[in-house]
């Protein structure tokens, strides 16, 4: 082949997770490469690993990995059209639609296909596989009229699929040919423990059961088993293993394994020097790697090789930790360990099982199985991967930890130890960043990507980070400001334990100097409000309040204010709407609808604020706390009351929540939303607290936010009833109020919690700290002592004193100038102000 362009033409077949990772890695290493990626699926690469979350309410767009990024990278992407032929002689590929793409180098990343066992009747309508977004759609459509679903295959993916069917509200069965579930990753006892968990969740498990035939039966399907029994169902999903997509390669004369898979060497190259294969379609040393992390490693190796590097793939550890139907399961190395020494621990009540296999000399970890609780996983994995000698009493590695202390110190790990396996971040890399001046865990995360994948390494990462800083003799100053050598959390604790109710006492007993500053004063004001809920303009509190709290309104750029009455759930009567209009008209306020389903009135002079509020309160409004670090709005859709799709009364729930939490002062503002069904019109997943209706109750999401650094909320609990929902939110909010840093949104707070979401679940759902009763009592106090701050203010002449523009004159501030635009007023620009003045003088 002869080509005019010097730039290397690289064609990638398959735009799945690994193909995508390859493309971005190569584009990064060699920006002048001409990369073309061809995918059979209609959409660009998405996160297949989290596919099932779509059933739990996540949107498919959310899973997208590629987004519009390909354009930016200069990568040509071609979707919805599979490659049907590789012409190795002319170095080109052909697609089904007849397109031809020449290549200098070809990378095959075609992944795999679910294996459908050759059971007669396996092609009935109602039979599905589960691998792609399209499969998911098909299953979802079929499940609308279904009541029962069967998964054939009790492996990791089969159980994941069972969870999905359960989420769709189907009575779910798992049929497994082998005697146990997840036979590859678990030993028989572990498998048995998992089974008990799963059956308790209402999934029926049939092991040692061979399906001989599938027939149509009435409206549905019937499975006939070898033992003569049968099972009737509406839909069947096959999940009996995967088969590598190697047909293209085979037809092109490339070597494939006996049981499938394109043979590659340690450079990820096939027998043809111009062709590479990566991901689940590739066979390395007789093994297929059915997990995403090894696939990513292959992609990195292949990209490096194409860019002239010498990286090599040396196989990968197939240890996994996951949550199946909410049950934690972990498997490390050799799970069965037939020849080795084994330690086991079982708690039949909590259904926890742990097994650790040691090497014959009893010195190293050879493998492990964990079911029901994976706390020990990270540590065991480090022992296994880094071949660290086990401690004198090895059993402590799998025994439940009493106080959460781990046995393994970060110091014991070699520099090569992978701390985050998702992003392959080693301890050495972390030390490097610290040596270069990184002092903040968040900064470390964004620089290295560590802990931004599955998140499982969060605790270990923090441990390593802290130890490394410590060993360098660096002390992290967590003081809130020069007046207190404490964090916000510590100050909260001090005020609570010592019953301190004012700033001066706190400063006198625990601080320095006699004044404080604009950092500690509002922080303490917020703590006192969260603890005692007294009026923020009461007595000593007055001088502590930040800009907006100072006058219970939001200061705008010219020193005037905006006013936001509360409109709970965004529901408002025509009369009240008119009342707002009248107030806005009377005080000439610029009026705008907010993103939180309420109305913001701008341009109020400070001396007008009490008058405006008197009118609003007369019309039945309360303060909207738009000025406070507190609950702003609970956005809602109309839900089942009006909407054709709604399954719960989302407005009713939004009203309940907004009225409950409306007075709560918190480290930062709080936004909620409630959607009436999984279509999620209220965008609850972008809120601090998001509630999405299901047929059985509510799904609760926490820790989302929009703004500068948008973050999706995480699914915290599913299908809970009203009372549980409120109890969980009570506890989460109070725990946040107690432990967050000043001005820390819930999203950042959750990231900063060691153990993240699962730790929060342990605190809130399992009450692992034993504080839930206290948290609820504290919230009950806040709810019980609610007052509309504005109502109290306008009744108190002492508080009204501060709303005078000038203490010695009734004049307005003549330097505040407005002009009109689109029939409303707005602050004049400086140019406009000087022009107006010139006109006035002439």
């Amino acid at each position: 082949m002869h080509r005019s362009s010097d730039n290397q033409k690289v064609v990638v077949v398959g735009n799945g997770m690994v193909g995508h990772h390859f493309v971005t890695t190569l584009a990064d290493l060699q920006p002048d490469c001409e990369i073309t990626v061809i995918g059979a699926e209609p959409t660009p690469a998405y996160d297949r690993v989290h596919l099932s979350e779509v059933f739990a309410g996540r949107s498919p767009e959310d899973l997208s990995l590629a987004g519009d990024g390909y354009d930016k990278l200069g990568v040509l992407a071609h979707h919805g059209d599979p490659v049907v032929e590789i012409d190795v002689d002319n170095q080109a590929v052909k697609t089904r639609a007849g397109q031809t793409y020449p290549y200098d180098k070809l990378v095959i990343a075609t992944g795999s296909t679910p294996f459908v066992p050759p059971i007669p009747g396996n092609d009935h309508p109602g039979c599905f596989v589960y691998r792609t977004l399209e499969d998911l759609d098909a299953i979802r459509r079929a499940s609308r009229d279904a009541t029962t679903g069967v998964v054939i295959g009790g492996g990791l993916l089969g159980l994941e699929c069972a969870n999905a069917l359960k989420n769709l509200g189907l009575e779910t069965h798992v049929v497994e040919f082998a005697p146990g579930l997840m036979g590859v990753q678990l030993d028989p006892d572990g498998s048995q423990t998992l089974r008990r968990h799963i059956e308790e969740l209402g999934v029926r498990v049939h092991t040692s059961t061979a399906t001989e035939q599938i027939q149509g039966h009435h409206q549905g399907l019937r499975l006939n088993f070898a033992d003569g029994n049968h099972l009737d169902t509406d839909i069947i999903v096959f999940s009996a293993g995967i088969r590598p997509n190697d047909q293209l390669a085979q037809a092109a004369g490339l070597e494939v394994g006996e049981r499938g898979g394109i043979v590659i060497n340690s450079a990820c190259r096939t027998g043809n020097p111009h062709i590479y294969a990566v991901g689940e379609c590739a066979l390395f040393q007789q093994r297929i790697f059915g997990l995403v992390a090894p696939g990513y490693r292959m992609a990195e190796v292949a990209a490096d090789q194409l860019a002239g590097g010498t990286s090599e793939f040396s196989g990968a550890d197939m240890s996994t930790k996951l949550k199946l139907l909410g049950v934690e399961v972990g498997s490390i190395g050799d799970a069965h360990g037939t020849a080795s020494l084994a330690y086991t621990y079982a708690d039949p009540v909590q259904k926890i099982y742990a097994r650790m296999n040691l090497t014959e000399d009893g010195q190293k970890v050879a493998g492990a199985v964990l079911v029901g609780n994976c706390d020990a996983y990270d540590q065991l994995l480090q022992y296994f991967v880094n071949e660290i000698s086990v401690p004198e009493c090895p059993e402590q590695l799998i025994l439940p930890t009493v106080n959460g202390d781990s046995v393994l110190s970060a110091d014991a790990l070699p520099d090569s130890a992978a701390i985050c396996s998702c992003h392959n971040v080693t301890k050495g890399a972390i030390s490097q960043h610290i040596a270069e001046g990184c002092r903040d865990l968040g900064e470390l995360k964004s620089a290295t990507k560590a802990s931004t994948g599955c998140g499982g390494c969060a605790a270990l990462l923090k441990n390593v980070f802290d130890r490394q800083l410590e060993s360098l003799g660096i002390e992290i100053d967590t003081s809130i400001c020069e007046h207190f050598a404490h964090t916000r959390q510590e100050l909260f604790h001090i005020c609570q334990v010592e019953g301190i109710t004012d700033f001066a006492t706190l400063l006198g007993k625990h601080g320095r100097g006699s004044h404080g500053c604009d950092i500690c004063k509002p922080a303490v004001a917020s703590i006192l409000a969260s603890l005692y809920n007294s009026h923020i303009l009461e007595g000593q509190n007055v001088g502590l309040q930040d800009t907006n709290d100072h006058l219970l309104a939001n200061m705008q750029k010219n020193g005037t204010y905006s006013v936001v009455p509360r409109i709970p759930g965004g529901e408002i009567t025509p009369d009240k709407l008119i009342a707002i209009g009248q107030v806005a008209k009377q005080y000439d306020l610029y009026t705008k609808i907010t993103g939180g389903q309420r109305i913001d009135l701008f341009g109020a002079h400070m001396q007008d604020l009490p008058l405006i509020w008197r009118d609003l309160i007369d019309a039945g409004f309360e303060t909207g706390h738009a000025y406070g670090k507190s609950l702003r709005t609970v956005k809602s859709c109309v839900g089942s009351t009006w909407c054709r799709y709604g399954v719960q009364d989302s407005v009713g729930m939004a009203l309940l929540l907004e009225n409950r939490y409306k007075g709560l002062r918190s480290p930062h503002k709080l936004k909620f939303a409630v959607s009436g069904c999984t279509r999620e019109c209220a965008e609850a997943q972008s809120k601090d607290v998001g509630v999405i209706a299901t047929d059985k109750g509510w799904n609760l999401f926490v820790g989302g936010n929009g703004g500068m650094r948008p973050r999706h909320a995480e699914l915290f609990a599913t299908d809970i009833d009203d009372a549980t929902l409120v109890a969980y939110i009570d506890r989460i909010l109070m725990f946040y109020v107690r432990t967050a840093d000043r001005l820390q949104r819930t999203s950042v707070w959750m990231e900063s919690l060691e153990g993240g979401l699962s730790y929060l679940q342990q605190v809130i759902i399992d009450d692992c700290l034993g504080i839930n009763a206290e948290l609820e009592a504290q919230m009950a106090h806040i709810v019980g002592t609610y007052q509309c701050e504005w109502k109290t203010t306008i009744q108190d002449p002492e508080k009204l004193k501060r709303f005078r523009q000038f203490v010695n004159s009734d004049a307005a501030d003549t330097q505040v100038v407005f002009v009109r635009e689109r029939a409303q007023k707005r602050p004049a620009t400086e140019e406009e102000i000087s022009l107006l003045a010139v006109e006035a003088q002439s």
Partner: protein
Amino acid sequence: MNLAATTAKAVPLCQLSDLIPGSGVAALYQGGQNQSGQNQGGHNKDGKQKSAPQGEQIALFYLPDNNPSLYAVSNYDPIGRANVLSRGIVGTINTRLVVASPLYKQHFDLLSGVCLEDSRYTIKVYRVHLDQQTVVLEV
């Protein structure tokens, strides 16, 4: 405070009871200049512009436990470009008594008027004292 400063004219501004302990208020000094250097212009409720010179806006801070307990600076925030400093939080930064602008949080020294973050900006500082229950400005 030196009441005997003979050349100084004493202008009563307001009463002690007008002040808010631990916080600030604004007062108008009719005899003064418009301190921002901007031209005048105003807007009435009926929408007509007016342009009567207003005098100087003074931010008064009252810290009862401090000595002295009274501080007065210009109410105009030269960075945020609005008359808002009386609504800022008072505190100390390295023992210097400051007010933090409620708009963008720069700190202004209450004794010298210098902006701690950007010394190109200095706000006017006034001498004030208490005469019985009256707050008096020395000009």
